[in-house]
C-alpha cells in the first residue's frame, strides 16, 4: 500500500470510521513500516487536542436576543400554539453574566440582529428565561428507592461529580451472595423525607454552589401506596380532587455561565393530571434511586460504616455518571455546578432502608478531566471535595409534616399532563387495552398503584397501569390505536429485538429499562425500575401475541409515517425506536440478541423512500 492510498484510511481510522477489517489490517501493517505515515497519525492527535479541547472564553448568551426577536416576529412565522406564557415570563429574572464573559450582545452595529434589536423597545426588558434541564430517564434502575426529599437541601461547594450508581453485587444477587454489608432485606421505605444542607468546601467559589435551593418534595406514608401524584405540594385532602403537583426551585445556571453564576430567580413548575412515573413530567416523588446500579464494579470500593444524620450508614464509592439520576432529581432543587461523569462520589446510604443520606464528590484525575475543567472554568484541586450533600431530619415510614405539601403558589397555572385516573365509560378501547396489558406475573410485593388513561391530545388514548412495592415500580402502557410507522414507546434510537420466554418477539431499549411489544391490534410498552430481566418477564406474561414489526409495512409505507408520528401530539411517547433493517444483511449479533441498526438521521423502518440529496444550501433554515 502506498502512502497516498493509506492516509485517507489512516484519517478514517482515527475517527473510528474504518469499518472494513481487511483495510484496518492493511493500514496497521503500513503504519508499522512507514515513519512518515506514523508521524501523520501522531499529528492528527495533536490537532484533535488543540481543537476539541480548546478553552472557550467569551461565549455569548444569545438567549435574550433570540427570545425578543421571536416575540417580535409576525404571528404568521410563529409555530402553531405560540403563547407568551405570561405567568412564567413575569417570574423571569436576569441571569447574572459570568465575569469573564461579555454581556449578551444584540448584534453589531448595522447588522440585521442590531436592526432587530433597535426595532424592539421591549427587548431591553426581556431577561433570559429560567433555565431548566430536560428530564433524564431514571433508566438503569433495578431495586429502587428513595422517595422524596422534603425540604431544604443545602449544598455547599461546587457541583458534585461522581461515579455511576451501582448497587453492590452483594445486594443484588441471591441471599447466598449477600454480605453483612448489605441488608438481606432492606426495610420497606414507604416514605422518606429529609432536609439537606450542601456546603462549599473551603476555597471553593460560593457562587458556584450556594444556591440555597429549597425543595418541597415528599412521599407520604399512606399504607403501602405511593401517592406519586402528589408531586411536591398538594395538601393531602386536595390531592385526589386536583391532582396537582408543583415544584419551585432556582433554575440551573447554564454551563457557560458557571462557575461565577448566581442562579436566577426560582421557577415554579406546576402540572395537573400527571402520569405516574413520567419522565416528561419529573417529580421528585418519583425519584426512585437505582440501588441496583450503584457501581458497575464487581466489588465496589466500600467506605465502611458511620453515622449520618443520626442514622447508621454504609458507604461506597461510585461515580457521578452512576448517581446521575439522583443528581438530576436533586437538581430540581437548585442550580449546581457541572460535574464530570467520572468524578468519584462517596455515597452514604441508610444501613436499613438504603436511602441516600450523604454524598461527597471529588474531582477525577486525568487529562480529559483537566481539559474539561479548564474549558468549563473550574479550578478543582486534586482530592478536594467539590460538592458535599448531607441530609438531615430524615424520616422513614413516619408521617410527614403538614408543611410538606404547601399550596401551589398563587398565580401559577398548572399544565395539563392529560392523565385521567378514571377510564371514560363511553370509550371501551382504553379499557380493553388495559385488560390485555395486565401482566400475569409481577415481582413479589408489587401492588397496584395508579391506573388511568392518557389522552386528550392529538395522539391515541393510552391505557396506563402501574404497580409498586414502595421502592421499585412497573408501568405498562398500551394502546389499540397506534398508527404504526415506528415502535410504540420511548425506547430511544437503539433497540434490541429479543425473544421472550413464551416465544413472543419484543424490543428492548438500549438501557434495558423499556420493553416494547407489537401485536396486530395492540401496542404495549413495559417500563420500570426492576431491571431488564424483570421487565422481559412482565412482558412475557402479558396477554399479547407480540410479533415482529411489520418488515414491509413499516419500511415502505404509502406515506412517510414519521411525519405523522412527529405531529401526533405532545402526549405521545417520542423517542421512538426506529428499527432499521430488522432483518437483512446488516443484522448483527450482540449479546445474544439481534441488534438492528437504527437510522439516526432517517427512519428507514417507517420510510425508505428515496430522498434526493439536498443541495448545499437546502434544508431547514436555508434561505430561499
Amino acid at each position, binding site marked *: 500500500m502506498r502512502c497516498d492510498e493509506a492516509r485517507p484510511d489512516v484519517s*478514517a481510522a482515527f*475517527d473510528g*470510521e474504518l469499518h472494513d477489517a481487511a483495510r484496518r489490517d492493511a493500514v496497521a501493517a503500513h503504519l508499522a513500516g512507514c515513519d512518515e505515515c506514523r508521524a501523520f497519525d501522531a499529528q*492528527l492527535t*495533536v*490537532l*484533535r487536542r488543540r481543537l476539541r479541547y*480548546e478553552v*472557550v472564553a*467569551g*461565549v*455569548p*448568551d*444569545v*438567549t435574550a*436576543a*433570540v*427570545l425578543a*426577536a*421571536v*416575540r417580535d*416576529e409576525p404571528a404568521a*412565522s*410563529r*409555530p*402553531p*400554539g*405560540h*403563547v407568551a*406564557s405570561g405567568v412564567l415570563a413575569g417570574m423571569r429574572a436576569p441571569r447574572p453574566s459570568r465575569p469573564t464573559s461579555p454581556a449578551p450582545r444584540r*448584534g*453589531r452595529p448595522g447588522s*440585521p*440582529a442590531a436592526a432587530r434589536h433597535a426595532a424592539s423597545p421591549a427587548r431591553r426588558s426581556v431577561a*433570559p*428565561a*429560567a*433555565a*431548566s*434541564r*430536560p428530564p433524564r430517564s431514571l433508566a438503569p434502575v433495578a431495586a429502587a428507592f428513595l422517595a422524596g426529599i422534603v425540604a431544604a437541601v443545602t449544598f455547599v461547594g461546587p457541583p458534585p461529580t461522581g461515579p455511576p450508581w451501582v448497587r453492590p453485587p452483594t445486594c443484588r444477587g441471591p441471599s447466598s451472595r449477600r454480605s453483612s454489608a448489605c441488608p438481606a432485606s432492606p426495610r420497606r421505605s414507604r416514605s422518606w423525607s429529609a432536609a439537606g444542607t450542601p456546603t462549599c468546601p473551603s476555597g471553593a467559589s460560593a457562587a458556584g454552589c450556594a444556591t440555597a435551593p429549597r425543595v418541597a418534595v415528599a412521599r407520604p406514608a399512606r399504607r403501602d401506596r405511593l401517592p406519586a401524584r402528589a408531586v411536591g405540594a398538594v395538601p393531602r385532602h386536595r390531592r385526589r380532587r386536583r391532582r396537582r403537583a408543583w415544584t419551585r426551585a432556582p433554575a440551573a445556571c447554564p454551563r*457557560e455561565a458557571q462557575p461565577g453564576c448566581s442562579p436566577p430567580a426560582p421557577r415554579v413548575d406546576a402540572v395537573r393530571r400527571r402520569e405516574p412515573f413520567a419522565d416528561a413530567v419529573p417529580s421528585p416523588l418519583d425519584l426512585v434511586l437505582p440501588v441496583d446500579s450503584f457501581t458497575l464494579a464487581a466489588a465496589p470500593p466500600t467506605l465502611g460504616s458511620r453515622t449520618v444524620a443520626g442514622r447508621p450508614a454504609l458507604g461506597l464509592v461510585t461515580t457521578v455518571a452512576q448517581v446521575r439520576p439522583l443528581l438530576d432529581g436533586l437538581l430540581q432543587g437548585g442550580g449546581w455546578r457541572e460535574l464530570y461523569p467520572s468524578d468519584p462520589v462517596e455515597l452514604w446510604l441508610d444501613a436499613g432502608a438504603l436511602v441516600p443520606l450523604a454524598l461527597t464528590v471529588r474531582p477525577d484525575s486525568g487529562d480529559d478531566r483537566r481539559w474539561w475543567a479548564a474549558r468549563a472554568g473550574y479550578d478543582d484541586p486534586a482530592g478536594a471535595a467539590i460538592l458535599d450533600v448531607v441530609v438531615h431530619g430524615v424520616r422513614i415510614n413516619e408521617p410527614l409534616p403538614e408543611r410538606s405539601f404547601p399550596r401551589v403558589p398563587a398565580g401559577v397555572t398548572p399544565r395539563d399532563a392529560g392523565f385521567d385516573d378514571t377510564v371514560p365509560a363511553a370509550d371501551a378501547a382504553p379499557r380493553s387495552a388495559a385488560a390485555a396489558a395486565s401482566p400475569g406475573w409481577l415481582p413479589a410485593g408489587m401492588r397496584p398503584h395508579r391506573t388511568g388513561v392518557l389522552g386528550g391530545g392529538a395522539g391515541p388514548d393510552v391505557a396506563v397501569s402501574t404497580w409498586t412495592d414502595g421502592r421499585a415500580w412497573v408501568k405498562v402502557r398500551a394502546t389499540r390505536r397506534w398508527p404504526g410507522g415506528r415502535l410504540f414507546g*420511548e425506547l430511544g434510537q437503539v433497540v434490541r429485538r429479543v425473544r421472550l420466554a413464551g416465544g413472543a418477539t419484543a424490543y428492548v431499549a438500549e438501557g434495558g429499562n423499556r420493553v416494547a411489544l407489537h401485536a396486530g391490534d395492540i401496542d404495549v410498552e413495559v417500563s420500570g425500575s426492576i431491571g431488564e430481566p424483570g421487565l422481559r418477564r412482565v412482558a412475557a406474561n402479558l396477554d399479547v401475541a407480540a410479533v415482529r414489526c411489520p418488515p414491509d409495512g413499516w419500511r415502505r409505507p404509502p406515506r*412517510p409515517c414519521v411525519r405523522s*408520528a*412527529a405531529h401526533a*401530539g*405532545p402526549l405521545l411517547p*417520542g*423517542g421512538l425506536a426506529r428499527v432499521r433493517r430488522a432483518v437483512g444483511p446488516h443484522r448483527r449479533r450482540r449479546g445474544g440478541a439481534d441488534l438492528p441498526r437504527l437510522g*439516526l*438521521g432517517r*427512519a428507514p423502518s417507517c420510510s425508505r423512500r428515496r430522498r434526493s*440529496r439536498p443541495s*448545499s*444550501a437546502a*434544508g*431547514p*433554515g436555508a*434561505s430561499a
Partner: protein
Amino acid sequence: MDEPAPQVVRAAAAGDLDAFTELVRTYQMPVWRFLRHLLGDAELAEDVTQDTFLRVHRNLAGFEFRSKFSTWIFRIARNAGTDALRAQQRRARLIRAVQPAPPAGDAATGVELSASLASLAPKLREAFILVEVFGLPYREAGDALGVPEGTVKSRVFHARGQLVAWLRAGEPGERVGEV
C-alpha cells in the same frame, strides 16, 4: 452531545417559549463555537448564532425526528453560516474594488490554529469542524452538510492533510479548491 427530550422539542414546536429557551441554552455554545470556527470571526458568529436560532424557531414545526436534533441544528447553523460567508465575500469584493488589497500575512504570524482553519476552503472547514471539534460521526456530519458520508471522509482527510502540513511548517496552509 446531549439530545433534548422529544417532549421538549415538541413543546417548543408548539410554541412553548420556555421549552424553546431550554433548547437555545443547550445549543447556543456548540452552535457559536461551530460558527466561530467556520466564519473565523467571533462577533459575526454571534450574530449568525442569533440568526440560526431564529431559523430554528421558524422551522421547528417541520422537524420530523428523522435525524438527531443536534444534527438538524448544525445543519441550520451551517446554512446560516454559508449565507453569512457569501455576504462577507460580497462585501470583500466591494472593498477590494475600492481600495488595494492588504499585504499578505507574514508566515511568522501564522501561529494560531484558527488561522490555519481559516485557510481551508469552507467546504473542507465545515466538515472538519463537525468531525474534529464536535466529534460527529461521518454519517451525521453528512446529514448536517447534505453530502454523502464518503464526501465527508474525503473532505476531512484533505483538511487534515493541509493542517498537518501547516503544523509541520509552522505556517498556514495554502488555500485549495473545494472538493
